[in-house]
């Protein structure tokens, strides 16, 4: 075991993983985090805690991770390269690990100009792949970037993102290979709507032998309504929503759109369960945490394995 995290144990035991996501509040209300966490408890193997997502200031990711641990859930500490230099990153990794954090997701981070502080200086001292490598060096060699020794190195299960839907498409699998070379243990993908493109990407990864070296969790976000689908299609960079998905949502009565969105997600999950090279699903039910129990039930991923 690299970290002994629940996610690592679930994946090592060969189970199909099911992970969730939670965005910290724009304030100091811990109850909000606890309330969201209750919907996820027992329904997912681990919960991603976003880090100033979309470059908007929120309660820090590691702090919300600690609340999750108090509530008996396993967090995945997301860390973006936008807001910290290598000193702050290594310090936060030590601190978070000390308090029980065992998983991390290493990300570049959305550019500051998307968020509420567009004039801030983006740090980007290191990039996301370099962050993966930094965490691995801390874990496996017990070394800081400086080369100095770490007393009791942090044992972190190292995650990163992959986006099969951003151009150049043929590059994406090579970027995955780069992340593997840097030392990543698991990948959570961007939200998948274009299944054809995703199948091609996974096949390429299988052909290159990459899926034997890393766990792939397929990203799923159920559509709540047609407006959300259109927004994701037009406004969110790196997300591709085929017109046929929107047509399908439009084709049901207005009151049934959310239900249809869940139905589409469940069909995707069924396919992922059978897809060679896919080891689980990352469920990003954005501001829809209370629906996760129903989604998990309908996706037939319950009960979650005890490992």
């Amino acid at each position, binding site marked *: 075991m690299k970290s002994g995290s629940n996610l690592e144990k679930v994946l090592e035991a060969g189970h199909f993983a099911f992970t969730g996501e939670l965005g910290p509040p724009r304030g100091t209300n811990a109850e909000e985090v606890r309330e969201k966490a209750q919907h996820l408890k027992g329904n997912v193997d681990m919960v991603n805690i976003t880090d100033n997502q979309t470059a908007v200031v929120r309660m820090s990711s590691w702090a919300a991770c600690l609340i999750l641990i108090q509530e008996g859930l396993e967090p995945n500490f997301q860390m973006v*390269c936008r807001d910290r230099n290598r000193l702050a990153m290594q310090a936060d990794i030590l601190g978070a690990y000390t308090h029980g954090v065992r998983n991390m997701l290493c990300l570049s981070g959305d550019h500051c100009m998307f968020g509420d502080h567009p004039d801030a200086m983006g740090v*980007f001292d290191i*990039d*996301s792949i370099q962050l993966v490598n930094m965490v691995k060096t801390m874990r496996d060699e017990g070394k800081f970037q400086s080369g100095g020794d770490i007393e009791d190195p942090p044992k972190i299960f190292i995650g990163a993102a992959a986006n099969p839907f*951003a151009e150049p498409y043929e590059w994406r699998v*090579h970027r995955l290979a780069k992340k593997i070379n840097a030392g990543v243990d698991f990948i959570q993908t961007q939200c998948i709507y274009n299944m054809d493109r995703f199948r091609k990407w996974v096949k390429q990864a299988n052909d290159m032998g990459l899926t034997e070296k890393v766990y792939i969790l397929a990203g799923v976000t159920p559509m709540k309504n047609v407006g959300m689908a259109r927004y994701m299609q037009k406004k969110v*960079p790196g997300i591709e929503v085929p017109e046929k998905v929107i047509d399908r949502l439009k084709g049901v009565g207005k009151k049934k759109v959310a239900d249809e969105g869940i139905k589409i997600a469940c069909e995707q999950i069924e396919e992922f369960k059978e897809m060679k090279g896919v080891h689980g699903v990352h469920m990003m039910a954005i501001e829809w945490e209370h629906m996760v129990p129903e989604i998990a039930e309908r996706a037939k991923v319950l009960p979650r394995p005890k490992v």
Partner: protein
Amino acid sequence: MIVVKRKPFEEIKTMLKDYKKVLTLGCGTCVAVCLAGGEKEVGILNAELSMARKIDGNPIDLGATTLERQCDMEFLDELENVVDEYEALLSMACGAGIQFLAERYPNKPVLPAVDTTFIGANRDVGWYEEKCRSCGSCVLGWTGGICPVTMCAKGLYNGPCGGTDNGKCEIHQDQPCAWFMIYERLAAQGRLDLIMEFQPITAWQNQKPRTLVQPGYEKQKEAG
């Protein structure tokens, strides 16, 4: 070249409000080429300032000189006999020139009339693009001659990130994705292997003021 932009007129006017005799100094190199701080721009700025101050009932006496280079002490020496006639110096050179001017004449208030903007290239007369952040360890040899430190909004060394949108950067549809361009160019040259390797963490060279002494200078000094 170093590209500069003239400061807003009101800002310049406010900086000069307490002075009645000021020498405006152009620079004949980069800032003249980018049409912001050469002889012609000195003339225009002085004319605007004179008129505005006259209207305000607070006239100003403005001198005008354009040096060959303000980033060179040799040329700054030329001012030695005239500087004392003025209360302040208004420089239209880049930040390097302005600081050298202030160093050469430490008793005079030296004020900037331009904002130094970037190291760039001429796309057309009057149209400049940033191309270099002078990071101190050039990567262009393996990035297809496109600088990711400057052109990628996140300065990534292992791009492109997941935000590429039809070849554009996630920050704006008018901003091409540097790493997309790097990929395309290297693919066309059959050199994609250059970016397949993991690029380790950068040792930043630009985190403290830098001094460069060329080997030729050392030799010359040794020879006396």
